[in-house]
């Protein structure tokens, strides 16, 4: 286990020096003046905000002084040219009350409702684009540059990728000294073998599973580690973001279809063993199924992780919301219980994603063996 700790230390050391920044002053309304309704709304916003991606890595916020502790991340925009600057440029301060960032003569700000970057003028007014839709109606849309920033989620993913790389390289290295597992390999080998023996081989088959192992192992540990990262108080929510799960689902979709054998396509376009009219009727259904499968993968992981974060965030908000210490204590207990459930869900969702991916790969790799079942 020594090596794992070393890797974790390296990962922590990679986080740049924590900087202090004073954010917008609008949150300075005193808590006491809030009505219950407003308080509730604020809490809802707070929980929602924490499930979203952001352009800087916030670690801690003192609401009374409006001080945010964290560090800025690079913003990369494509807006008729490349714009690169640090997200600290968005911080509202003296002379820049709206938090407008300037780059090469263009002005940008972060929308408060969704945390996205909008084009604006130097006074902080969001630029709008007026266009006509097919019916000739005027459509007003706010202009957003193509945002390729290293956001909090990208940064967290990068950290997890580095952690995974060093971790599993050290696992691989431990086999050089002898064939028996040592160190971290003792912990990870059973999991790797579980994926091979209980997920890949039963679903894909003894012969065909080998070429899919790399993807299955990577996707399992990637999701699991990111889920676990979401359990930390850093407020990372990578797997609860639809862009991430969509990416993973698309990989599964592409690998399934590009590695598919004749039998897979036969089952879609000319289902064996049913009458001809049925064969024709089944084509669109199967085609939809082709898309629905990875779509379900995407939604399942996204919804589970997001829901977990919202439930945990709400429970923590409830702890703050109640005045009675008895109620606070009870909800701390409930939060603890939910945390343990989430810990299970983190592994379970990674397992389900990998399992179903293996199932789809199995249908793509099947050769005649499946035919006998008809």
């Amino acid at each position: 286990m020594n090596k794992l700790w070393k890797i974790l230390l390296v990962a922590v050391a990679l986080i740049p020096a924590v900087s202090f920044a004073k954010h917008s002053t609008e949150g300075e309304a005193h808590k006491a003046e809030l009505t219950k309704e407003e308080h509730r709304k604020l809490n809802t916003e707070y929980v929602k905000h924490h499930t979203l991606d952001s352009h800087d890595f916030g670690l801690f916020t003192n609401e009374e002084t409006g001080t945010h502790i964290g560090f800025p991340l690079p913003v990369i925009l494509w807006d008729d040219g490349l714009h690169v600057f640090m997200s600290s440029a968005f911080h509202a301060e003296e002379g820049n009350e709206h938090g407008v960032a300037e780059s090469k003569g263009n002005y940008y700000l972060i929308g408060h409702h969704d945390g996205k970057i909008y084009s604006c003028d130097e006074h902080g007014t969001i630029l709008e684009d007026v266009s006509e839709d097919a019916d000739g109606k005027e459509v007003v849309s706010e202009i957003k540059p193509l945002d390729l920033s290293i956001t909090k989620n990208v940064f967290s993913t990068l950290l997890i990728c580095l952690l995974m790389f060093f971790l599993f390289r050290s696992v691989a290295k431990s086999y050089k000294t002898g064939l028996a597992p040592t160190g971290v390999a003792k912990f990870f080998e059973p999991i790797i073998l579980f994926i091979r023996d209980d997920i890949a081989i039963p679903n894909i088959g003894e012969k065909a599973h080998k070429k899919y192992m790399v993807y299955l192992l990577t996707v399992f540990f990637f999701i699991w580690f990111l889920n676990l990262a979401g359990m930390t108080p850093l407020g990372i929510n990578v797997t609860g973001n639809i862009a991430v799960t969509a990416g993973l689902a698309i990989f599964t979709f592409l690998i399934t279809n590009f590695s598919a054998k004749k039998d897979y396509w036969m089952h879609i376009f000319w289902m064996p063993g049913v009458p001809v009219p049925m064969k024709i009727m089944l084509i669109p259904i199967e085609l939809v199924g082709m898309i629905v499968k990875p779509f379900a993968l995407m939604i399942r992981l996204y919804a589970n992780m997001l829901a977990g974060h919202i439930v945990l965030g709400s429970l923590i908000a409830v702890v703050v919301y109640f005045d009675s210490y008895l109620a606070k204590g009870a909800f701390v207990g409930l939060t603890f219980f939910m945390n343990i459930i989430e810990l299970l869900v983190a592994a379970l969702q990674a397992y389900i994603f990998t399992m179903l991916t293996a199932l789809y790969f199995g249908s793509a790799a099947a050769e005649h063996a499946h035919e006998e079942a008809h």
Partner: protein
Amino acid sequence: MDKLLEQFSFGLFFWQALLFIGLLLLLRKFAWKPILGAVNEREEKISESLDLAEKTKQEMQALQTQNENLLKEARAERDSMIKDAKEIASKMVEDAKGKAKEEAEKVMVSAHESINSEKAAAISELKTQVAAFSIEIAERLVRSELSAADKQKALADKLAEDINLN
């Protein structure tokens, strides 16, 4: 659904896909291949070792049975050898006994023969001696008898009587 699409961040999607592909390639080269290779190698080694152990066990068993057979054969051979030796020994003893008896008989026979011949010789010698003694005694007797005339006559008469009787 609209909200979902609105929330979809292309930048995050792009970076995440890039990072994931990078991770996939790196881990394939530096982690999964060596790990799965080592695990496979070990599994093969284990199954090979088990096979070898089974084989060795069978060989051992075969060897043991062979040894047992050999031992059995050796034992049987020994027994037969002992039996043969015993037979030969007893035969030899028998033979020796027979020979000795024969020899002894022979010796006895020859002893008997020589005793008999000696005896016969001794008897014949004794006879001649006795005859000589008797002749001498008879001569002396005759001489003394014949010294007196009457005695000579009486004797002659007696002799004549004996002859007549015969």
